[in-house]
């Protein structure tokens, strides 16, 4: 039993203006420092790995690039040594990083409050509930986006040698793939933007689902769906693709002017030929062009005369078929980066605004 008495209440006029925003700084840090530290430690550990491998990669590239003449045996051995570490090779492994940040840093922000009931404490303090939500989400979003941005700067440096389209490194297949799902979103502004979007998805999922684990699962699923849709379709259609006619050179990587093929289709006499029908035509043409073999001796000669794909294609174009190829030039890397970064940023802002609105509206 206490004998303390409460001093008289200070002047009431203070209550007319809201509690200052900056006071939430300590609150957010104190409650989410483990999540933030976790993100930094996790990214830092991967960064050390990337950095060590990157030094080797840059060294190998410099050695291979300086080698003369490029066709010599010693040089080809150097080129052979110039390759990306297997973990980093396809870029898909690191695609998981934004998703994990969204699930582990974004989803619990509101879901944990709702799951444990602490929202009944937090939302009834003088700070006000929607201000509380905003003051938590924005600094956390900025922090994880900045961490991801720094990490992606390191990745850009790591992959840099692969995109220097210079002899003798043309053997390396990646340059034409600079807009592909694996490499594109690890570099430029895309990685940070994806991380921000994943965080916002996580926050909204947490608000809607109110359970930490379920919200994390939904965040991962939603991110995966969005990333696949973007990588497989959306990204190559931000800007209208250029279209080429009977341009078979796209089958061969052109290091001076790398492109990414969006789609290919055939027409005959102004109407589109379905892919399955076209496959049959190509196969039968191929069969018809095969030399007839009677003995094993002739077979050896016939093998040399076997038609190549290019022969078949030329044959078809001479017989009324036209092949169309739509493509994006790899030089559009930065415009496409900014478009992707832009819409992801807008999406993240929209999702966070929706989250704050829900916090304000939600009936317990």
């Amino acid at each position, binding site marked *: 039993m206490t004998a*303390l008495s409460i*001093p008289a209440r200070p002047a009431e006029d203070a209550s007319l203006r809201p*509690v200052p925003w900056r006071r939430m700084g300590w*609150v957010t840090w104190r409650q989410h420092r483990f999540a933030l530290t976790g993100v930094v430690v996790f990214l830092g550990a991967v960064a050390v790995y990337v950095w060590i491998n990157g030094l080797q990669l840059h060294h190998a590239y410099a050695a291979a690039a300086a080698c003369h003449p490029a066709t010599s045996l010693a040089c080809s051995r150097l080129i052979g040594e110039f390759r990306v570490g297997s973990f980093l090779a396809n870029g898909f492994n690191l695609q998981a990083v934004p998703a994990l940040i969204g699930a582990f840093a974004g989803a619990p922000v509101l879901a944990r409050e709702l799951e444990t009931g602490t929202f*009944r404490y937090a939302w009834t303090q003088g700070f006000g509930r929607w201000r509380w939500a905003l003051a938590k989400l924005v600094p956390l979003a900025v922090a994880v986006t900045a961490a991801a941005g720094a990490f992606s700067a390191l990745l850009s440096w790591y992959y840099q040698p692969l995109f220097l389209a210079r002899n003798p490194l043309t053997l390396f297949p990646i340059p034409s793939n600079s807009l592909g799902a694996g490499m594109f979103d690890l570099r430029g502004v895309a990685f940070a933007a994806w991380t921000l979007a994943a965080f916002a998805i996580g926050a909204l999922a947490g608000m809607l689902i109110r359970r930490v684990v379920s919200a994390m699962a939904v965040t991962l699923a939603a991110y995966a769906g969005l990333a696949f849709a973007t990588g497989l379709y959306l990204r190559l259609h931000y800007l209208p693709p250029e279209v080429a006619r009977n341009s078979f050179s796209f089958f061969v990587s052109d290091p001076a002017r790398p492109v990414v093929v969006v789609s290919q289709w055939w027409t005959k006499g102004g109407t589109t030929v379905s892919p399955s029908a076209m496959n049959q035509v190509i196969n039968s043409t191929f069969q018809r062009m095969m030399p007839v073999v009677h003995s094993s001796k002739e077979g050896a000669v016939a093998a040399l005369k076997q038609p190549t794909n290019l022969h078949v294609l030329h044959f078809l174009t001479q017989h009324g078929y036209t092949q169309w190829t739509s493509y994006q030039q790899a030089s559009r890397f930065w415009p496409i980066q900014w478009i992707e970064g832009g819409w992801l940023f807008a999406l993240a802002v929209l999702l966070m605004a929706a989250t704050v609105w829900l916090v304000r509206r939600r009936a317990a």
Partner: protein
Amino acid sequence: MNVIEASGLGKRYGSTWALRECTLAIPAGHVAALVGPNGAGKTTLLNMAVGLATPSAGRVTVLGGRPAGSLAALDGIAFVAQDTPMYKNLSAADMLHLTRNLNHRFDQHYAEARLADLGIPLKRKAGRLSGGQQAQLALTLALARHPLLLLLDEPVAMLDPIARHDFMATVLTAMADEGVSVVLSSHVLAELERVADYLIVLSRGQVQVAGEVDDLLASHRMLTGPAGEVARCAGRPVVQLRRGEVQAHMLVRATADNPVPAGWEAHPVGLEELVLAYLREPGAAALPGPTLLRDAEPSGVTQ
């Protein structure tokens, strides 16, 4: 000033009304007890008063007309929710810091001194405190904000008798020292007799009784008389009738001045007895008109 004012307030979850047609005004300067069986709408009413739930019908204001849940309202209200939810991984000191940062006013000195008084270590994590200590910590956080209104949702339900006593003593001290108005919900009736001076009985989502405890006690009498002569007392509104083989007990609305029929005895009633009688007769009971509502219909009149 009314600390809580509701008119036609209703809350529906799906197709069931947790609270409906609730009209009441709780004046400042009381320890008001919100009583009712489980599911009567006590928590729903408090949640709407503090802005955690939005009304499906009607409106509710606090502290003399501030909209429930607005910044001005939150500034003057301290709410201790059921089971006193707290960040389990934060220490008591962190909880003080947190609450200080989230509010205009926070009396750090008072809070620390009170926790020391209660023997609650500042460095211990909230999740490792006992149930009674958690409740006391939550109450300390609430009181250190110097609220005008303290809302407590089932504050003592989980506490043992000693912790319950200490908790209520703290509430009463704050009430006496600073004039904090208190509204608490509870189904622990025995505790109310000692602390509450204003009573609201909720039943099946509607207000059944509302008024100052002294007025309510003064306006109810328990009549005891022969079982066969119940009809002779029909002049008064009967809250509850219990008829035995020989004797009948009747809780009626009557003051000490009202005449007692011949052959009957009148006794004053206790608060617990009164509340129980109303709770047992949710349908039959006519409401004693809430004396403090001047412009509104007496609420909770049975259909």
